């Protein structure tokens, strides 16, 4: 184990590009800090101001644990994370403290992972990608190659999710774009082309093609800023920086950039690279193996990226059955994020919390929950699940996989 970790540190120490990339990866944690800090999103989500549990299914009582810290203590946790991230970023630029930078980066990665997993409100592709590349940076061999392959894989995965009416008609947009009419139609198609075809230019041996692709991607993220806000573009700029660092170093004659595309096609990449890429694609395919439409699912899509594939509409039906009274419980938060608005996990969490509260009442008989959802461009609602007695389930947050009790 120790030798394994030493090898990881040595790989970073022996590659100037990776050292600089460590700085940019640390910046993604600073962007995370700023994103969570903005509008007190993190404090609200973690503290008892947030009355909804919003837990990952493998951590079903996270809200109880979150409640152990006060608002001020959560604020302190966030600031500590932000400050450590800043220090780690600076350590990567230092010539002498590279070991410490590696361990510091391990620490902020683990802090972010812990915070992320403590609250389902923090789900999102940006965190998924940061975690993936952080793990590869810390623990994967042939770091530079595998990170570049993964970056291309992120785009390809996102592009595949966009070949549908929701993206191509603009229905998936979370806010109105600058463009409209035919120009918007063409742009939406071009993004698909960019992510599925042009992006492979990053792996080309031809310098002009790599630069062309990089600028296309930068332009795409810059233009998306007015729709998605600062965080997503800043994360992508930071993650893509590895390509720029290598281009700069090649320009200065320090390195020669190999044709990663040819290496992959001709089987010249390391076995570990193939295994990790295979694992990535298996994780992306998993939701399609267990559910008919991952964009309407919650737990089923945890393993994969879920880009702007669809905006959804839904009707949750959560009913408390008492002796002489029925109460249809309202949906929890009006201001949930676009991806959470119809996420089954939100409603399963709400039901799980109600089960804890209601079971002490002698009037309480059972709690039923069903969820009907559709993509905004669909015309039929799909019943995502139908649970007649949520409180009797052993693992309620995995309820979308439970067998329905429909008559």
């Amino acid at each position, binding site marked *: 184990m120790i030798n394994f970790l030493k090898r990881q540190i040595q790989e970073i120490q022996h590659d100037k590009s990776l050292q600089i990339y460590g700085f940019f990866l640390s910046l993604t944690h600073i962007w995370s800090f700023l994103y969570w800090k903005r509008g007190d999103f993190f404090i609200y989500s973690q503290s008892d101001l947030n009355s909804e549990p919003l837990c990952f299914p493998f951590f079903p009582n996270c809200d109880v644990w979150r409640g152990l810290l006060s608002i001020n203590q959560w604020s302190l946790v966030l600031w500590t994370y932000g400050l450590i991230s800043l220090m780690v970023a600076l350590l990567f630029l230092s010539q002498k403290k590279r070991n410490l930078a590696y361990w510091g980066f391990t620490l902020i990665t683990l802090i972010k992972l812990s915070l992320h997993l403590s609250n389902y409100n923090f789900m999102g592709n940006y965190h998924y990608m940061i975690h993936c590349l952080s793990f590869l940076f810390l623990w994967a061999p042939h770091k530079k190659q595998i990170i570049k392959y993964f970056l291309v894989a992120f785009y390809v995965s996102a592009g595949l999710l966009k070949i549908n009416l929701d993206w191509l008609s603009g229905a998936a947009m979370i806010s109105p774009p600058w463009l*409209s009419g035919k120009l918007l139609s063409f742009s939406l198609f071009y993004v698909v082309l960019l992510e599925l075809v042009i992006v492979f230019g990053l792996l080309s041996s031809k310098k002009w093609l790599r630069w062309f692709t990089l600028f296309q991607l930068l332009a795409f993220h810059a233009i998306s800023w007015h729709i998605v806000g600062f965080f997503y573009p800043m994360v992508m700029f930071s993650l893509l920086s590895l390509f720029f660092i290598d281009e700069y170093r090649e320009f200065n004659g320090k390195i020669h950039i190999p044709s990663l595309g040819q290496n992959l096609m001709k089987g010249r990449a390391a076995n570990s690279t193939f295994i990790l890429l295979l694992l990535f694609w298996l994780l992306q395919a998993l939701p399609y193996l267990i559910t008919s439409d991952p964009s309407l699912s919650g737990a089923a899509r945890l393993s994969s990226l879920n880009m702007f594939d669809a905006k959804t509409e839904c009707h949750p039906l959560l009913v408390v059955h008492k002796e002489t*009274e029925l109460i249809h419980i*309202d949906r929890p938060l009006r201001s949930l994020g676009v991806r959470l608005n119809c996420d089954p996990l939100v409603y399963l969490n709400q039901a799980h919390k109600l089960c804890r509260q209601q079971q002490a009442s002698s009037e309480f008989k059972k709690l*039923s929950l069903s969820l*009907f959802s559709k993509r905004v461009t669909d015309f039929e*609602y799909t019943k995502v699940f139908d649970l007649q007695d949520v409180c009797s389930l052993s693992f309620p947050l995995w309820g979308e996989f439970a067998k329905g009790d429909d*008559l």
Partner: protein
Amino acid sequence: MTFRKTYLFFVALTGLIAFLTFQANPHFYLFNGDYDLIVDKAYRSDVTRFKTLDSSCQATAQYRYDEERTGVAPPSAQPKAKVQILKKQSPLNVDIHNASKSSPTVDSSGVYVGSDSGWFWKRDHDGNVIWSFYIPGSDNGIHGSAAVDEKKVYIGAYNGFLYALDKETGEIVWANPVGNYIGASPLLAGGALYISAETYHPDGYLAKLNCNTGETQWVSKWFRGHSHSSPTYDKENGQLLVGANSGRLFAIDENSGDTNWELQLGGQVKGTPLVWGGKVYFSSWDKHYHAYDLKNGEEVWKQYMGGRNQTSLSLVPGAAIGIANTKMGDIVGLDLNSGEFLWRLNHGDRNHQFSILITEDPQRPNQYLAWSRCKESQLCVLDGKTGKLIHNLELPGTFTSVPFAFKDKVYISLDKDAGLVILQ
């Protein structure tokens, strides 16, 4: 792979992606909120079933009593004209929204009434609560009235769900999120259940459901506006009549959900149409009452009502008279054949939201009483044929719901927090 092969591979990949994207969006539609208008196809929802409770789907009571929405109570309901307040049960509404409130529906099993607070109750005939159901999800609660058959009660709410409940226990039988809002009352007719549904954008449609399973059997095309109008059944022509805020009135085939004919009026059609004598009668915000031929949708007459109108015409049996309120502060009797005014009673209340109950006068066989709000918080009882005022009674509050008669009692859901009054 040589450069040429690589080049060809990516050109082919581009072609494949162009093909797939064209398949996904063949007409390069852009979603702009009117997308569903382009495709002219309304939402279709799914149902959650909680228990099996099959019934005949024949109404024992519903909004305006019958499938034709005549507003005429059955012969078993004959309250005397000079009623007094027997009981008052509070609270009921909280007056969140100024639309007409949910009217009570009463049969031999009890009183079913909703509230704009979201509560729906079964009460005994004296108004005592037997069971209750809370429906959240909007600020408007329940504004429609229940439809009841021998085993189940059906109620729609502003959270978009239509519910079937077990009359005896209050247990939920099924729930179907038919739309984003439901403000209208369901209709039990021809062995099926119909409801007007509304969506956010705003739009609306009519849905037909199996009353036992709750499954959606069809949805009509879009109405181009919300539908606050409750549907009415035209048995002879096998069609449903329903209005929309787009100023349209639709005649919809009961088997297919296709539109047989539609009209475009000059104002919103919010009231519930009356079907009688081969014609449909309805009010509009275009300030008129209209009569159209049910077979072909051709105009028979229209009558100026002095202002916006969203009431429903109530029938005086055996006399071809329809009674309604006007924006001018009148209760009027209209000749259903010509549209001419037969009589007019001015009470000065210019509200145009409330409709009239018709009951047979227990003291004068085959003569009918018209029960209406007048002067805000007063109930007026008129002679249906002549419009002569027989009785008026001060109530504890105003009302926009329709009174419901059962046996010798009349039930009225009052606005704000004035509660449910029982008159006898």
